Protein backbone atom coordinates (compact mmCIF):
# COMPACT_ATOMS: atom_id res chain seq x y z
CA UNK A 1 0.00 0.00 0.00
CA UNK A 2 1.29 3.42 -0.95
CA UNK A 3 0.19 6.64 0.71
CA UNK A 4 0.59 9.81 -1.25
CA UNK A 5 -0.16 13.47 -0.73
CA UNK A 6 -1.01 15.71 -3.64
CA UNK A 7 -0.89 19.46 -3.18
CA UNK A 8 -2.63 21.70 -5.71
CA UNK A 9 -1.88 25.41 -5.70
CA UNK A 10 -2.85 28.33 -7.89
CA UNK A 11 -0.21 29.36 -10.41
CA UNK A 12 1.66 32.58 -9.87
CA UNK A 13 -0.15 35.49 -11.43
CA UNK A 14 -3.60 33.89 -11.06
CA UNK A 15 -5.75 36.08 -8.86
CA UNK A 16 -6.93 34.30 -5.69
CA UNK A 17 -9.87 36.26 -4.28
CA UNK A 18 -10.43 33.65 -1.55
CA UNK A 19 -6.81 33.94 -0.42
CA UNK A 20 -7.23 37.71 -0.34
CA UNK A 21 -10.36 37.39 1.82
CA UNK A 22 -8.55 35.06 4.22
CA UNK A 23 -5.66 37.50 4.39
CA UNK A 24 -8.12 40.23 5.34
CA UNK A 25 -9.69 38.04 8.03
CA UNK A 26 -6.28 37.26 9.53
CA UNK A 27 -5.59 40.97 9.68
CA UNK A 28 -8.97 41.50 11.40
CA UNK A 29 -7.92 38.94 14.02
CA UNK A 30 -4.85 41.00 14.77
CA UNK A 31 -2.25 38.91 12.93
CA UNK A 32 0.05 41.56 11.60
CA UNK A 33 2.76 41.15 9.02
CA UNK A 34 0.93 38.64 6.83
CA UNK A 35 2.48 39.28 3.43
CA UNK A 36 0.08 37.12 1.45
CA UNK A 37 -2.21 34.08 1.55
CA UNK A 38 -2.84 31.68 -1.33
CA UNK A 39 -5.49 28.99 -0.89
CA UNK A 40 -4.83 25.51 -2.25
CA UNK A 41 -6.05 21.92 -1.94
CA UNK A 42 -4.59 18.74 -0.43
CA UNK A 43 -5.53 15.21 -1.52
CA UNK A 44 -4.40 12.16 0.46
CA UNK A 45 -4.54 9.18 -1.88
CA UNK A 46 -4.00 5.52 -1.00
CA UNK A 47 -2.89 3.17 -3.77
CA UNK A 48 -2.66 -0.60 -3.82
CA UNK A 49 0.73 -2.25 -4.41
CA UNK A 50 4.21 -0.99 -3.60
CA UNK A 51 5.57 0.22 -6.96
CA UNK A 52 6.50 3.74 -5.94
CA UNK A 53 7.85 4.86 -9.32
CA UNK A 54 4.73 3.59 -11.09
CA UNK A 55 2.57 5.18 -8.42
CA UNK A 56 4.15 8.58 -8.94
CA UNK A 57 3.43 8.38 -12.65
CA UNK A 58 -0.19 7.35 -12.06
CA UNK A 59 -0.70 10.10 -9.48
CA UNK A 60 0.71 12.68 -11.89
CA UNK A 61 -1.75 11.49 -14.52
CA UNK A 62 -4.58 11.81 -11.97
CA UNK A 63 -3.52 15.41 -11.42
CA UNK A 64 -3.33 16.16 -15.13
CA UNK A 65 -6.69 14.56 -15.85
CA UNK A 66 -8.76 15.58 -12.84
CA UNK A 67 -7.25 16.78 -9.58
CA UNK A 68 -5.67 19.95 -10.96
CA UNK A 69 -6.83 22.31 -13.67
CA UNK A 70 -3.48 23.05 -15.25
CA UNK A 71 -4.85 26.21 -16.85
CA UNK A 72 -4.76 27.83 -13.43
CA UNK A 73 -3.15 25.35 -11.02
CA UNK A 74 0.16 23.62 -10.30
CA UNK A 75 0.43 20.33 -8.47
CA UNK A 76 3.03 18.36 -6.56
CA UNK A 77 3.03 14.66 -5.69
CA UNK A 78 4.69 13.36 -2.54
CA UNK A 79 4.86 9.67 -1.66
CA UNK A 80 5.22 8.85 2.03
Amino acid at each position, binding site marked *: MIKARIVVTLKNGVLD*PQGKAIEGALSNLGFSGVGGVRQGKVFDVVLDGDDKAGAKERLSQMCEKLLANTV*IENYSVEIA
Partner: protein
Amino acid sequence: MNTVVVLLPGLNRDRDMIAALTAITGKAPKTVWQTETALPPADLVVVPGGFSFGDYLRCGAIAARSPVMRAVAEAAAKGVPVLGVCNGFQILCEAGLLPGALMRNTSLRFVCREVKLSVANAATRFTTAYAENQVIRCPVAHHDGNFFADAETLKRIEGENRVVFRYAEGTNPNGAINDIAGIVSAEGNVLGLMPHPENLVEPEHGGTDGRGVFESVLGLAPAKAAA
Protein backbone atom coordinates in the same frame (compact mmCIF):
# COMPACT_ATOMS: atom_id res chain seq x y z
CA MET B 1 -35.38 20.23 -35.74
CA ASN B 2 -33.77 18.22 -32.96
CA THR B 3 -32.22 19.64 -29.85
CA VAL B 4 -30.64 17.75 -26.98
CA VAL B 5 -30.23 18.87 -23.37
CA VAL B 6 -27.64 17.14 -21.21
CA LEU B 7 -28.78 16.30 -17.68
CA LEU B 8 -26.37 15.95 -14.79
CA PRO B 9 -27.07 15.71 -11.05
CA GLY B 10 -27.10 19.18 -9.52
CA LEU B 11 -28.06 21.14 -12.61
CA ASN B 12 -31.04 23.43 -11.99
CA ARG B 13 -31.43 25.44 -15.19
CA ASP B 14 -32.29 22.44 -17.33
CA ARG B 15 -36.03 23.10 -17.13
CA ASP B 16 -35.60 26.73 -18.20
CA MET B 17 -33.50 25.53 -21.13
CA ILE B 18 -36.03 22.87 -22.11
CA ALA B 19 -38.84 25.46 -21.97
CA ALA B 20 -36.85 27.92 -24.09
CA LEU B 21 -35.92 25.33 -26.71
CA THR B 22 -39.52 24.09 -26.84
CA ALA B 23 -40.84 27.63 -27.29
CA ILE B 24 -38.32 28.44 -30.02
CA THR B 25 -38.36 25.20 -32.02
CA GLY B 26 -41.92 24.10 -31.32
CA LYS B 27 -40.59 20.73 -30.24
CA ALA B 28 -39.39 19.52 -26.86
CA PRO B 29 -35.68 18.70 -26.76
CA LYS B 30 -34.54 15.19 -26.00
CA THR B 31 -32.80 14.86 -22.66
CA VAL B 32 -29.74 12.72 -22.08
CA TRP B 33 -28.69 11.55 -18.63
CA GLN B 34 -25.06 11.69 -17.49
CA THR B 35 -24.51 7.94 -17.78
CA GLU B 36 -25.41 7.80 -21.49
CA THR B 37 -22.54 7.14 -23.88
CA ALA B 38 -24.22 8.28 -27.10
CA LEU B 39 -26.38 11.23 -28.11
CA PRO B 40 -29.44 11.15 -30.36
CA PRO B 41 -29.05 13.06 -33.66
CA ALA B 42 -29.08 16.75 -32.86
CA ASP B 43 -28.94 20.15 -34.52
CA LEU B 44 -27.89 21.60 -31.17
CA VAL B 45 -26.62 20.06 -27.93
CA VAL B 46 -26.98 22.17 -24.80
CA VAL B 47 -25.24 21.80 -21.46
CA PRO B 48 -27.38 23.92 -19.12
CA GLY B 49 -26.55 25.73 -15.91
CA GLY B 50 -26.67 24.80 -12.26
CA PHE B 51 -24.30 23.23 -9.80
CA SER B 52 -23.40 19.85 -11.27
CA PHE B 53 -22.07 17.47 -8.63
CA GLY B 54 -22.37 20.25 -6.06
CA ASP B 55 -19.44 22.12 -7.64
CA TYR B 56 -17.19 19.60 -5.87
CA LEU B 57 -13.45 19.83 -6.65
CA ARG B 58 -13.95 22.70 -9.13
CA CYS B 59 -17.08 23.96 -10.89
CA GLY B 60 -17.83 21.53 -13.71
CA ALA B 61 -14.79 19.33 -13.01
CA ILE B 62 -16.64 16.13 -12.14
CA ALA B 63 -19.33 16.62 -14.78
CA ALA B 64 -16.67 17.12 -17.47
CA ARG B 65 -15.44 13.56 -16.82
CA SER B 66 -18.89 11.94 -16.96
CA PRO B 67 -19.70 9.45 -19.77
CA VAL B 68 -22.18 11.77 -21.46
CA MET B 69 -19.55 14.47 -21.84
CA ARG B 70 -17.38 12.09 -23.86
CA ALA B 71 -20.37 11.73 -26.19
CA VAL B 72 -20.71 15.52 -26.31
CA ALA B 73 -17.02 15.84 -27.20
CA GLU B 74 -17.45 13.30 -30.00
CA ALA B 75 -20.46 15.21 -31.36
CA ALA B 76 -18.52 18.48 -31.15
CA ALA B 77 -15.63 16.91 -33.04
CA LYS B 78 -18.08 16.00 -35.80
CA GLY B 79 -19.19 19.63 -36.02
CA VAL B 80 -22.47 19.42 -34.10
CA PRO B 81 -23.17 22.81 -32.46
CA VAL B 82 -22.75 22.68 -28.67
CA LEU B 83 -23.89 25.42 -26.31
CA GLY B 84 -22.82 25.61 -22.66
CA VAL B 85 -24.50 28.14 -20.39
CA CYS B 86 -23.16 29.08 -16.94
CA ASN B 87 -22.24 25.76 -15.32
CA GLY B 88 -22.39 24.38 -18.86
CA PHE B 89 -19.64 26.85 -19.87
CA GLN B 90 -17.57 25.75 -16.86
CA ILE B 91 -18.10 22.11 -17.86
CA LEU B 92 -17.03 22.73 -21.47
CA CYS B 93 -13.84 24.45 -20.25
CA GLU B 94 -13.10 21.62 -17.81
CA ALA B 95 -13.72 19.10 -20.61
CA GLY B 96 -11.17 20.87 -22.78
CA LEU B 97 -13.74 21.78 -25.44
CA LEU B 98 -13.09 25.45 -24.74
CA PRO B 99 -9.90 27.13 -23.52
CA GLY B 100 -9.47 28.93 -20.20
CA ALA B 101 -11.11 28.48 -16.83
CA LEU B 102 -13.90 30.10 -14.81
CA MET B 103 -12.72 31.22 -11.41
CA ARG B 104 -14.41 32.63 -8.30
CA ASN B 105 -15.91 36.10 -8.86
CA THR B 106 -13.46 38.76 -7.69
CA SER B 107 -16.19 40.17 -5.42
CA LEU B 108 -16.50 36.68 -3.82
CA ARG B 109 -20.25 37.26 -4.12
CA PHE B 110 -22.82 35.24 -5.98
CA VAL B 111 -24.19 37.67 -8.57
CA CYS B 112 -27.79 37.33 -9.73
CA ARG B 113 -28.82 40.26 -11.88
CA GLU B 114 -29.11 41.56 -15.39
CA VAL B 115 -26.03 42.69 -17.30
CA LYS B 116 -25.48 44.20 -20.70
CA LEU B 117 -23.60 42.16 -23.27
CA SER B 118 -21.86 43.49 -26.30
CA VAL B 119 -21.86 41.15 -29.31
CA ALA B 120 -18.13 41.09 -30.00
CA ASN B 121 -18.41 38.81 -33.02
CA ALA B 122 -21.71 38.72 -34.93
CA ALA B 123 -20.29 36.38 -37.56
CA THR B 124 -20.32 33.17 -35.49
CA ARG B 125 -23.04 30.63 -36.07
CA PHE B 126 -24.50 31.54 -32.67
CA THR B 127 -24.76 35.28 -33.36
CA THR B 128 -25.98 35.82 -36.92
CA ALA B 129 -29.23 37.27 -35.53
CA TYR B 130 -27.30 40.11 -33.91
CA ALA B 131 -25.41 43.07 -35.27
CA GLU B 132 -21.72 43.52 -34.53
CA ASN B 133 -21.27 45.43 -31.25
CA GLN B 134 -25.02 45.31 -30.59
CA VAL B 135 -25.68 45.59 -26.87
CA ILE B 136 -28.21 43.15 -25.49
CA ARG B 137 -29.66 42.53 -22.03
CA CYS B 138 -29.03 39.20 -20.36
CA PRO B 139 -29.38 37.83 -16.83
CA VAL B 140 -26.44 36.30 -14.97
CA ALA B 141 -26.52 34.08 -11.87
CA HIS B 142 -23.19 32.66 -10.79
CA HIS B 143 -20.45 32.55 -8.18
CA ASP B 144 -17.64 31.45 -10.49
CA GLY B 145 -17.81 33.35 -13.74
CA ASN B 146 -14.45 35.05 -13.68
CA PHE B 147 -13.01 33.93 -17.01
CA PHE B 148 -9.25 33.48 -16.99
CA ALA B 149 -6.74 32.33 -19.56
CA ASP B 150 -2.98 32.69 -19.62
CA ALA B 151 -1.50 35.48 -21.74
CA GLU B 152 -0.68 33.23 -24.68
CA THR B 153 -4.14 31.63 -24.79
CA LEU B 154 -5.81 35.00 -24.39
CA LYS B 155 -3.81 36.41 -27.28
CA ARG B 156 -4.82 33.45 -29.42
CA ILE B 157 -8.56 33.62 -28.71
CA GLU B 158 -8.61 37.40 -29.13
CA GLY B 159 -6.53 37.16 -32.32
CA GLU B 160 -8.85 34.52 -33.75
CA ASN B 161 -11.89 36.66 -32.93
CA ARG B 162 -13.28 33.96 -30.67
CA VAL B 163 -14.65 36.25 -27.98
CA VAL B 164 -18.35 36.29 -28.85
CA PHE B 165 -19.83 38.25 -25.96
CA ARG B 166 -18.26 40.81 -23.65
CA TYR B 167 -19.84 42.45 -20.63
CA ALA B 168 -20.63 45.94 -21.86
CA GLU B 169 -18.65 48.68 -20.22
CA GLY B 170 -19.23 48.95 -16.51
CA THR B 171 -21.29 45.77 -16.17
CA ASN B 172 -18.58 43.10 -15.71
CA PRO B 173 -20.08 41.21 -12.75
CA ASN B 174 -17.19 38.87 -11.96
CA GLY B 175 -13.79 40.31 -12.89
CA ALA B 176 -13.48 38.27 -16.10
CA ILE B 177 -10.35 39.13 -18.05
CA ASN B 178 -11.02 41.44 -21.04
CA ASP B 179 -14.69 41.50 -19.93
CA ILE B 180 -15.12 38.10 -21.58
CA ALA B 181 -18.63 36.65 -21.14
CA GLY B 182 -18.57 34.01 -23.88
CA ILE B 183 -16.17 32.36 -26.31
CA VAL B 184 -16.31 29.88 -29.18
CA SER B 185 -14.06 26.96 -30.05
CA ALA B 186 -11.48 27.27 -32.83
CA GLU B 187 -13.89 25.47 -35.18
CA GLY B 188 -16.69 27.81 -34.13
CA ASN B 189 -19.28 25.16 -33.28
CA VAL B 190 -18.90 25.21 -29.48
CA LEU B 191 -20.06 28.29 -27.56
CA GLY B 192 -19.77 28.77 -23.81
CA LEU B 193 -21.15 31.79 -21.99
CA MET B 194 -21.86 32.67 -18.37
CA PRO B 195 -25.08 34.71 -18.91
CA HIS B 196 -28.43 32.97 -19.45
CA PRO B 197 -29.92 33.75 -22.88
CA GLU B 198 -32.59 31.09 -22.24
CA ASN B 199 -34.11 33.34 -19.59
CA LEU B 200 -34.89 36.13 -22.05
CA VAL B 201 -36.61 34.49 -25.00
CA GLU B 202 -40.31 35.31 -24.59
CA PRO B 203 -42.04 38.69 -24.12
CA GLU B 204 -43.32 37.39 -20.76
CA HIS B 205 -39.68 37.21 -19.61
CA GLY B 206 -39.51 40.96 -20.02
CA GLY B 207 -37.60 40.76 -23.28
CA THR B 208 -36.38 38.51 -26.04
CA ASP B 209 -32.74 39.59 -26.32
CA GLY B 210 -31.46 36.06 -25.67
CA ARG B 211 -33.51 34.45 -28.40
CA GLY B 212 -31.03 35.32 -31.11
CA VAL B 213 -28.45 32.83 -29.80
CA PHE B 214 -30.84 29.93 -30.40
CA GLU B 215 -32.36 31.32 -33.61
CA SER B 216 -28.89 31.89 -35.05
CA VAL B 217 -27.51 28.44 -34.40
CA LEU B 218 -30.75 26.71 -35.41
CA GLY B 219 -31.01 28.68 -38.65
CA LEU B 220 -34.23 30.40 -37.54
CA ALA B 221 -32.84 33.92 -37.47
CA PRO B 222 -34.60 36.48 -39.61
CA ALA B 223 -32.46 38.61 -41.91
CA LYS B 224 -29.91 40.57 -39.93
CA ALA B 225 -31.06 43.99 -38.79
CA ALA B 226 -28.98 46.95 -39.88
CA ALA B 227 -26.30 47.84 -37.34
